[in-house]
Structure formats: structure tokens, C-alpha cells
């Protein structure tokens, strides 16, 4: 089920329930929309924050290309923590501050890295890292390894499976919607999803299976 909060077209009783939920959890509609990958919300978060981060990195010996990479890594870390409820922003400016701080810390980590020091003598005036409640390093190394293997495997998946899995897990569409789009009944769509996931699992973890 796709969650919707404070939207215009939902029936008024649902809107009321959503309002109550909204007030009880103290999160903004933007946060709830980010959790379900609503395009407008992700775009807002990106566009409202990129420039500040770029300015920071350009002023501290970075390039535009590096600014883009660091910002996107920070964006993903922030998004992940918001989704996993590791970071509960009370309002939009809290998310913006959070994203900026992660990007800043990532850039400082890079400036301190041997990789960077080899390139240039270290004399940056950038401040000390700021402590964050969750900075995207929460998951174990082992899990992160699995994740990167899984992402590689996803690349190798056929287009039909890719599209189907994106509809389910990124766009969070309901089984009914997807079945309608693909013109099949719900149980076939479910079975297709299962089979795609098994192909993906084999592509990713086949070697692990003893």
C-alpha cells in the first residue's frame, strides 16, 4: 500500500487520519514522501541543497565533479537513514541541515584520506567533523558488501524484471496497480515478482550458496 499524507485527492476521512498521524509523529509531509520515494520530494531535497554543498566543496579545494559525487553519496546516506527511521527530522530545515552535515563530513574524511594527502599537501581550513546521530555507517561491512554485489547483479537483470521490481520496490505501487499496468491478474504478477527476485538472488549470491 502506498502511503499518502496530507494530499489533496484522498477522501476526507483518510486525510483526517493522515493529519493525526502527521501530528503524532512530528514529521513533515516531505519526510513521509521521501520515505516512499515520491519524485517531487526527492527532487525538492536535491535542488534545495545541492548549491550549498557545491559552494562548500569549491571553497575547500574541490571540483564541481567532486561536489556532485560527495553530495550524491550524502543524499543516499541521508535518504537511507530517514527510511530506516534512524534519523527523525522534525521539519524540512532539519533534513536540509542533516544532509549538509553528512556531505561536509564526507568531504572532510576525503581531505584527510591518504589518497588526498598524496595528491596535495594538506592545509585546508575546514572545521572539525560534526557529530551526527546516524551518518550512514550504521550497517555492517558485511551487509554493505552484500549490497554492492546486489547492485551489480541488478544491472545484469533483464529489462522486464528490472521494470517490475522497480515498480514494486522503488515506486511502491500496489499489486493491483501493477497487475493492471501489465494486464495480468494479481497472482501472476506476484509470481512474476517472486521469479524475478530469485533470478536476482542467484545472480548476486550464487557463489555463496554451498
Amino acid at each position, binding site marked *: 500500500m502506498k502511503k499518502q499524507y496530507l494530499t489533496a485527492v484522498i477522501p476526507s476521512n483518510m486525510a483526517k487520519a493522515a493529519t493525526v498521524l502527521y501530528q503524532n509523529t512530528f514529521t513533515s509531509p516531505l519526510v513521509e514522501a521521501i520515505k516512499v520515494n515520491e519524485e*517531487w520530494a526527492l527532487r525538492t531535497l536535491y535542488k534545495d541543497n545541492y548549491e550549498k554543498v557545491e559552494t562548500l566543496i569549491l571553497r575547500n579545494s574541490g571540483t564541481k565533479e567532486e561536489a556532485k559525487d560527495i553530495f550524491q553519496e550524502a543524499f543516499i546516506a541521508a535518504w537511507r537513514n530517514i527510511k530506516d527511521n534512524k534519523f527523525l527530522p522534525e521539519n524540512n530545515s532539519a533534513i536540509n541541515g542533516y544532509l549538509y552535515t553528512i556531505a561536509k563530513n564526507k568531504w572532510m574524511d576525503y581531505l584527510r584520506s591518504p589518497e588526498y594527502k598524496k595528491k596535495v599537501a594538506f592545509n585546508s581550513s575546514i572545521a572539525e567533523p560534526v557529530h551526527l546521530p546516524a551518518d550512514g555507517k550504521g550497517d555492517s561491512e558485511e551487509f554493505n558488501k552484500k549490497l554492492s554485489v546486489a547492485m551489480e547483479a541488478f544491472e545484469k537483470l533483464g529489462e522486464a524484471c528490472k521494470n517490475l521490481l522497480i515498480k514494486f520496490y522503488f515506486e511502491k505501487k500496489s499489486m493491483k496497480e501493477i497487475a493492471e499496468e501489465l494486464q495480468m491478474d494479481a497472482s501472476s504478477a506476484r509470481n512474476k515478482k*517472486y521469479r524475478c527476485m530469485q533470478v536476482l*538472488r542467484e545472480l548476486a549470491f550464487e557463489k555463496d550458496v554451498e
Partner: protein
Amino acid sequence: MKKHNQSQEEFERIERYLTGRMDDNEKPDFEASLKTDPRLRKQTEEVRALLHAIEEKKLREKLDDFHEELTAGNRRVISVRPFLKYAIAASIALLIGLGVWLLSVRKTPDEKLFSQYFKPDPGLVTPMSTTPDYEFYRGMVDYKQGKYKPAIRRWRPLIEQKPKNDTLNFYLGVAWLAQGENKKAIVYLSKAVKYPNSTFINEAWYYLGLALLKEGHSEKAIHSFKKSNLENSNLILKEMGSAK
């Protein structure tokens, strides 16, 4: 290779757990098995990694799209000729520009309210079959993906043929509003509210209110919100200190 087969039932159970759809009857059992069953634990971690991977892959694609949109919008370069008088003229123009920019960056309470409430209408379910409204639904597919410009491009010829279509007027209005073109949004939404029997009548008044609010016409916006029976219209009226 298939030694560790996973049945559809097993997979869906893990999926329910990871996506937070497991009910309170099932969850304690599942969590207990996780502790004692290393195979289930391994499979759950694997499915968790796969679900993360699917989302993150797609997100990375989107981020690149957003980045392109952002840099495409910044390609306006001001060239200043090396003559003094041009330089002076340019500085004055820049100062005026800066003033206008500063004014526009500082959000008014109306704009804050707008950004707090505005969210594009989710759109209509798009049938896959070739209906007579094919072009309309092609536009709807773009619209639902947040590609408002292509959607508008597809819908524009249609509105010329059917200028009195309430659905078209409504979605064109919302699409323009999502693009930040408030005046154009007002044009279409004002047409959409002319059909009292339309399915979209309450939404149309609501979005017209939002567009007017964004343009700074608070009084007219209040008038619009009052005509809409949506819960959000009431909420926004309350915030504006003007409940029904």
C-alpha cells in the same frame, strides 16, 4: 546452484517482514525463528540487501537526472564587455538583479504555506490498452513520473481540440503549477472550476487556491479554498486564520 531454493511462500514471508507488513500474530514467530534458524537469517539478510539494492540503483539514476535538470537551468551566462561604460551598466543591472533576487528568495508567509501544502495530484491510473484517449494517457504517464514539461507538451494540442474538458484543464493546471508557472496554472484551473459536476471540482478549487496563494493573491485564494470541501482546504484556511 538450486540447492538453496526458496519457495514463493518463504520469500513472501521474508518480504512481509522486511517491508513492515507483517502483522502482530506472525511477527513474534518469525523473529523467534530468525534467532534459531541460520538459513532463514541468511536468506533474510540477502533479501534485505536485494531490496536495498533495487531502490538505491533507481535512486542513483534519478539523482543524475535531477543534477542534469539543475545544471541545465544554470547555463545562463552573463557576458560583460571590457569597456568601462558597459561594466558600469552591468554592475547596476547586477545590483538590481541581486535586489530582485534577494526579495524573491525571502519567502513570504503565503509562499511558505504553499510549499507546505502543495503536492501535485497523484494522477489517474493509466490503462495499457489503446484507448481513444491514448495521447492523454501518454501524458499522464509522464505526469506521474514528475515529467511535467513532456506531459504539458502532449496535452496542449488536446486542449485545443477540447477546450471545455474538465480533466484536461485540471491536470494542465496542476502540471503548470508543479513547474512553478503560477499564472498559466491559474488560467487552466480557472477553467476547470467552471464545471460544478466535474469529478475534480473540489481538487480544482483547492489547487486554484494554492496557485493564487503562490501569486500573492491571498484574498482570492481564501475565496477558492472556501469552495473546496477537501480537508486540506479547511486546514489551510485555518492556518490563514480564515476558517469556513
